[in-house]
């Protein structure tokens, strides 16, 4: 094949037959052959006869990445000992002689080389070539894990989270980390013995009313919008408060996309979603997301087919929707983030249950919760030393529940302006000043029982309904100061947080100290000690339905450990923790609630992490712990309902090729404690049996250990300008049914294991274009 290229000014000769691997490329020197000029014009012969001009064919090649349509620059076209490269738009122009034969090879690192036949070149004047991505060597470490002075912090990238987290939801990745228990608690987590209500979730600095939908185990934030999940299981700094457990921060992305991208997900049987992002300038982008469940439609159809079996009818329609709009802009001083998140959860249920009072023997439930949250984060570098971050936000939450004669309607409007000022003292030393004012207004229209599951005699049919019709408002204010101080290899971060809550008219303060010591370039010792306070829940401290005299719950955290970075790929972390949580709000017959409770938790955590590279990542997370509780000082310490001795998670994801990926996770957890019923009484007013327990039996029995295995496979179908990923797998499988609780017959004379749902096969189709 003879090819000319004006830029190279070289004639190329390619010999060989079409498709041979022994294609021989010869190049001629820049000196043209005897019978041609450089431009191919004939040269007059010695005998004054002119040679016939060579017929040339010009062709423009464009190179793109298969699956995205992104133009590829620096695609190498081998031409003998000459190399041609595509320009930033993926374009290269070449000329070939019209009698050319053979193939041209185009190659680029991380892509499969592609051969272009002469016939194809001659048949076109313009060709678009899409190169397939190739699985490269496992040499590049994407996540190395920066050393920060956050003692119990783990950061997981979205790339890892989306592959391995339950439901592919990054916010769920926390359940696979050390110190966290999740089995049987739904989407919410228990952190080092502290209950689900004791931890906080943020989207950057924004606090949303709820982070997880009631079905599907999905968070309200679209995964493509996230960059990282940051989790502190304890010992966190004074910038976070009102939490005695852990803090989860979903960090949104600040990476400006190079081009518009749209992603749709079809997840069977739960939901579909659509996400779109596009650059709106050199330093800004806009993202929009919408997600809706359709399990309500599927369930309705499935239950209709079982109508005849279920006398009285059974209808259940759980649903969720969420939407988000996000705008990010960088400027010379810093950046701005504007976010709007909205979500709705709902459930309509008609079921033939024992509590039914409809004449057809069914009870009706209608539950609906929705919120809208608007937040604006502004980061400004005031000068070389000072940086200011402020995130004013407003949220509106509306809940409407109607079940079995209980009616709950309340609206909550919350305005919050967390603000932090940072002064850089030196390269590794910063001084922090922060404040977090919050104003909350509620409108309540409630006539309902308030579940008190901690009361063993509580019965939803018998409990007295509480009435609350009012408008109330209260405010909280927190302020903190902290400092990062470097003394040789020792880094200390002392801090203190002060706060006031007008609902309980009480103030307090939490001193905290964290430190790390770099023993050598691999090993770092870490430790933290501090107090962490949490205000009682609004209903617990409410005037009419609670105890307004309640005080803050407090927890003292003691943490110590060592982190070892063996190399770029492997890190390990071992930590010991002890938590003494006191003034815990407990149920009280007379005052409804008191602060007499106490929880004591201690344990050992081990985290072995293989950092994310092109092909592989994974980790082993193990927690050994003990969690004891007492309702008052006069009571013995007994196992807390969150006591789980062993929690083991093994997660891994491996790329077999550029399009095939396999992954999975294994979980083993010790069974949780429960209380056996000693007998039951027949309630003649309700026509039902109510269990009774002996005080000494509380939490003395334990469920069997549980195991679950989730395996999945993902295959990418690559089209020219878009791609589709098909993910299929089996969620929560084990060879025998796993016990998630105990169940009783109608009069509690028999007890048997309650097993979880069988392994759920899932299919998810995700398109990106």
């Amino acid at each position, binding site marked *: 094949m003879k090819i000319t290229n004006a830029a190279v000014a070289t004639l190329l000769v390619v010999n060989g037959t079409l498709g041979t691997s022994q294609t021989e490329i010869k190049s001629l020197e820049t000196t043209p052959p005897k019978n041609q000029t450089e431009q191919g014009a004939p040269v007059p012969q010695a005998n004054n006869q002119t040679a016939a001009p060579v017929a040339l064919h010009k062709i423009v090649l464009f190179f793109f990445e298969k699956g995205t349509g992104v133009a590829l620059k620096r695609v190498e076209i081998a031409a003998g000992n000459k190399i041609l490269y595509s320009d930033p738009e993926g374009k290269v122009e070449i000329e070939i002689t019209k009698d050319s034969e053979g193939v041209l090879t185009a190659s680029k690192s991380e892509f499969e080389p592609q051969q272009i036949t002469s016939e194809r070149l001659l048949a076109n004047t313009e060709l678009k070539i899409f190169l397939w991505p190739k699985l490269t060597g496992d040499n590049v470490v994407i996540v190395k894990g920066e050393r920060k002075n956050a003692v119990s912090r783990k950061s997981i990238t979205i790339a890892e989270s989306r592959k391995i987290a339950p439901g592919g939801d990054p916010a769920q990745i926390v359940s696979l980390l050390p110190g966290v228990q999740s089995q049987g608690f*739904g989407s*919410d987590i228990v952190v080092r013995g502290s209950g*689900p*209500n004791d931890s906080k979730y943020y989207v950057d600095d924004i606090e949303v009313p*709820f982070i997880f939908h*009631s079905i599907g185990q999905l968070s309200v934030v679209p995964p493509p919008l996230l960059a990282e999940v940051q989790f502190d299981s304890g010992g966190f700094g004074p910038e976070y408060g009102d939490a005695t457990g852990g803090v989860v921060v979903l960090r949104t992305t600040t990476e400006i996309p190079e081009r518009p991208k749209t992603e749709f997900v079809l997840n069977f049987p739960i939901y579909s979603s659509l996400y779109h992002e596009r650059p709106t300038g050199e330093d800004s982008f806009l993202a929009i997301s919408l997600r809706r469940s359709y399990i309500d439609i599927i*369930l309705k159809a499935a*239950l209709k087919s079982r109508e005849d079996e279920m*006398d*009285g009818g059974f209808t*259940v329609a*759980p649903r969720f929707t969420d939407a988000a709009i996000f705008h990010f802009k960088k400027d010379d001083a810093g950046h701005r983030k504007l976010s709007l998140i909205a979500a709705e*959860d709902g*459930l309509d*249920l008609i*079921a*033939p*249950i024992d*509590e*039914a*009072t409809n*004449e*057809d*023997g*069914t009870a009706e439930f209608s*539950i609906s*919760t929705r919120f809208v949250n608007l937040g604006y984060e502004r980061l400004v570098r005031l000068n070389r030393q000072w940086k200011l971050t402020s995130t004013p936000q407003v949220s509106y939450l509306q809940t409407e529940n109607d079940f079995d*004669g209980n009616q*709950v309607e309340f609206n909550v409007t919350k305005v919050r302006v967390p603000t932090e000022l940072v002064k850089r003292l030196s390269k590794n030393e910063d001084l922090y000043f922060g404040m977090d004012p919050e104003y909350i207004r509620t409108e309540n229209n409630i006539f309902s029982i308030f579940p008190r599951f901690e*009361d*063993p*005699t*509580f*019965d939803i*049919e018998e*409990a*007295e*309904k*509480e*009435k609350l019709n009012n408008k109330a408002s209260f405010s909280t204010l927190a302020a903190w100061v902290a400092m990062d101080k470097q003394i040789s290899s020792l880094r200390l971060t002392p801090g203190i947080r002060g706060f006031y809550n007008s609902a309980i008219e009480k103030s307090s303060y939490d001193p905290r100290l964290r430190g790390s010591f770099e023993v050598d370039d691999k090993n770092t010792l870490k430790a933290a000690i501090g107090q962490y306070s949490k205000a009682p*829940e609004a*209903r617990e401290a409410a005037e009419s339905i609670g105890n307004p005299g309640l005080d803050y719950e407090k927890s003292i955290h003691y943490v110590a450990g060592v982190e070892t970075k063996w190399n770029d790929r492997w890190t390990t972390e071992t930590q010991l923790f002890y938590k003494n949580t006191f003034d815990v709000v407990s149920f009280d*017959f007379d005052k409804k609630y008191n602060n007499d409770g106490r929880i004591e938790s201690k344990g050992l955590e081990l985290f072995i992490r293989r950092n994310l590279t092109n092909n592989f990542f994974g980790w082993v997370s193990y927690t050994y712990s003990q969690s004891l509780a007492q309702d008052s000082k006069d009571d013995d310490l007994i196992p807390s309902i969150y006591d789980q001795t062993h929690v083991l998670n093994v997660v891994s994801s491996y790329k077999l090729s550029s399009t095939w990926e396999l992954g999975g996770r294994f979980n083993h957890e010790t069974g949780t404690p429960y209380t056996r019923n000693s*007998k*039951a*009484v*027949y*309630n*003649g*007013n*309700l*026509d039902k049996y*109510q269990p009774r327990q002996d005080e000494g039996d509380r939490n003395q029995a334990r469920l069997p250990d549980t195991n679950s295995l989730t395996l999945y496979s993902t295959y990418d179908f690559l089209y020219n300008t878009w791609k589709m990923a098909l993910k299929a797998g089996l969620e929560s499988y084990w060879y025998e049914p796993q016990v998630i609780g105990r*169940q009783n017959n109608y009069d509690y*004379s*028999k007890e*048997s294991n*309650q097993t979880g*749902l*069988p392994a759920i096969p899932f299919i998810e189709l995700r398109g990106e274009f």
Partner: protein
Amino acid sequence: MVIKTFISLLIVGCMALAVGACNEPVDRQEQIDRLKGIGLVASPLVNSPSQGSTINATQITGYATIPLGKTPVVTAYLDQPTAGAISVKTDEIIIDASKQELTTYEGFQLLKFVARVTIPSVTLIQRFTDDFQGIQFRYGFTVSTEDDVEYIVGSFLVYPEGSEELQWTNPVISIDSPTENQSLSAEEEFDVIATLTKPNDEDVKLGWYVSEGEISNRRAGETTWTLPTKGKHTLILTARGKKSRGFAIQIKTVNIQ
């Protein structure tokens, strides 16, 4: 957050029900196969304090099914305290043995027992606000036979003098189908139908009982009875007011051929 947890548990439970994950064979409450309590009612239905702090005596009538050939004994019982209720002590309950009745039906005996609750003095410490739901007095009985025991508990309400709730009365029920001594075919499904009259503004909970067989939905006014083997059998319908603690009972005998 608590409501979200409750919703999550409800949804998981419902989905399990939907996929039949909890569809295991269970004992059936409607089957009269042992000593079982089946109802309690107070008279007056709602009591009121007289002379400020003393309430009038309340008569409690209780019902239980007793296996054939067994002799029941009724005593007072003190249950675990429950939030929002005042426990009646055992010495404040006097069983009136003279009013005890034991009636034989097909497949079982029906015990009706009567007791008198006298509370010497009570301090009405609750404020009578607009959402007042009555003061609950919680009482209990033990019904025992030679080889079994049943703890039966209930409560009655006290409202201030002049309250509308003092006019509450018991619900009224009737079994429209089957009729008394109706002949039915064995091992078929038969529609049992009831009529309910609610005199008070409250929800009423129905409860079917059968000497044998299965009731599809024992809370429904119209449901099916999977008939047992041939012979005479008894059908019981009960109703109770959720607020008033009112009670009604009707019994029918059928002949299955």
